[in-house]
């Protein structure tokens, strides 16, 4: 190869490599925009909110006096709503996914379900709020209760759980199924003894991500009309009412009015007194910490736990 040609080629390569550098830089820049935003948001909340974080903040009800206001009713509400959500979405999601992945034959019914789940994943959360308002609140008369909110969010995260479960099931190699069948297992035994066990990390990841999404949802909860001052906890099962002497039923709390963290934050930020904004920042800090750690756990699960199941 002659020197002139070599030189020409080197020039071409050098020019082409410039784009490599450029894209790498752009990529890093874009990434840092995202990550800096996250950091800025977090630090901003931390600076404003952390001074308010003490045990009273977690144990007090909301109050018109900013210094006394706390998030007791809202974090308890969030947890109760999440319980309902998990209780509904997890079994439904897993069962649905098992059906689609292991049982469904290729026909129009499964096609419909299939397309439908993809579509649902793209439906805005506020639409779920409208569904809940029209159906749960007014048609089924469940009221603006923990049950309504939990069901709404369960429907909202159902596609997430289903998709995650299906992916987890899909990643189990066929030879494991064949081995189990060859031992004489029935289809359900294969599911119960093997598939469910081995897909647990994947399912768990999906559930956690879904729950972290649900816990931060505001719009559907507002839509069902839960923007309310709540300075009490839902009745614990068996809790005695001082005045009437009646014990609360096991599921009374399901019908109780409630508030959740994002609503409390929204409420505080919309108050005139700037000291409430500190409360809002503190509550937001707690909420973000909750969702971020849930996400972090999910990501950790995905990257670590999956490695432990070898085929």
């Amino acid at each position, binding site marked *: 190869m002659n020197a002139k040609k070599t030189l020409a080629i080197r020039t071409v390569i050098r020019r082409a490599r410039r784009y490599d550098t450029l894209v790498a830089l752009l990529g890093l820049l874009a990434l840092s925009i995202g990550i800096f935003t996250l950091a800025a948001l977090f630090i901003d909340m931390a600076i404003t909110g952390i001074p308010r974080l003490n045990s009273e903040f977690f144990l007090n009800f909301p109050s018109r006096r900013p210094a006394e206001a706390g998030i007791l009713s809202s974090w308890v509400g969030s947890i109760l709503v999440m319980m309902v959500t998990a209780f509904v979405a997890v079994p439904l999601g897993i069962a649905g996914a098992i059906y689609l992945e292991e049982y469904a*034959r*290729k026909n129009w019914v499964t096609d419909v379900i299939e397309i439908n789940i993809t579509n649902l994943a793209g439906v805005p959360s506020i639409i779920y709020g409208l569904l809940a308002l029209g159906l749960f609140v007014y048609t089924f008369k469940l009221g603006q209760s923990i049950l309504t909110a939990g069901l709404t969010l369960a429907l909202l995260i159902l596609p997430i759980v289903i998709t995650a479960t299906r992916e987890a099931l899909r990643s189990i*190699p066929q*030879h*494991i*199924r*064949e*081995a*189990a*069948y*060859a*031992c*004489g*297992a*029935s289809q359900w*035994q294969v599911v119960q*003894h*093997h598939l469910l*066990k*081995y897909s647990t990390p994947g399912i768990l990841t999906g559930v956690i991500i879904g729950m972290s999404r649900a816990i931060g949802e505001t719009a559907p909860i507002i839509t069902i009309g839960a923007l309310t001052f709540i300075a009490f906890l839902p009745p614990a099962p068996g809790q005695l009412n001082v005045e009437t002497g009646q014990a609360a039923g096991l599921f009374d709390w399901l019908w109780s009015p409630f508030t959740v963290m994002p609503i409390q934050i929204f409420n505080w930020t919309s108050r005139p007194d700037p000291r409430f904004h500190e409360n809002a920042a503190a509550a937001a800090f707690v909420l973000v910490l909750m969702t971020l750690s849930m996400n972090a756990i999910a990501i950790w699960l995905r990257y670590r736990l999956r490695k432990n*199941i*070898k*085929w």
Partner: protein
Amino acid sequence: MPSTITLPQNPPPLKAESKNLDFYYGDFKALKGINMPVYENKVTALIGPSGCGKSTFLRCFNRMHDLYPGHRYDGSIHLYPDEVDVLHKSVDPIEVRMRISMVFQKPNPFPKSIFENVAYGLKVRGERNRSVLEDKVEAALKGAALWNEVKDRLDDLAVNMSGGQQQRLCIARALATDPEIILFDEPTSALDPIATGSIEELVGEIKQKVTVLIVTHNMQQAARVSDYTAYMYLGELMEFGETNDIFMKPKRKETEDYITGRFG
């Protein structure tokens, strides 16, 4: 083309027999009118070039094809002594699989403990008694020449064993339920020579108790372990006979060509 079947002079009792067996993957006919005996407590090897239908044939015995839509059997495989046709549609494939175990090409232990792997077949059969389970697991592991290596770590994950150990574990899993037939589909093709040797030895031993059907692409292996050999080609059974005869004096040119390596 009719198969050339040379029955032994004093045939041992029949364990199974395929009769006019056709098999279809959708529209593709992968097996064409297979008639072949399987003798009790003998090892029968299936050989033939890649894609000839060895695995397909083997997997008919435990109705493995039922797992996939569009796979279709035609003909029958009778199991003796009761002469039930395992392919008959009134027969539950699960029941067939409980009588006929299988060991796969790639070792495929469940990602569970060694104990649970071996005990799995028993659990599926409803055995819950811990001491019965322990006894049977021990017997199966001994039968698979694995007991000494694993007896102190029955609770370890099976997937952390070596390939050869895993395959022996799969054999133990298949043995644990006292099957009538064990099907082997190229059980050593993922293993190194030493592990291969120990599996071959094992096959020789377990035939005392159970009938073995083994697919292999390794002629030497077939010659070493089997009593009978079937040579398949393009979905047909070309020749069946005692292994010595097939390898020493094959009746058909095609068989000879394949065995001497002139083709394949």
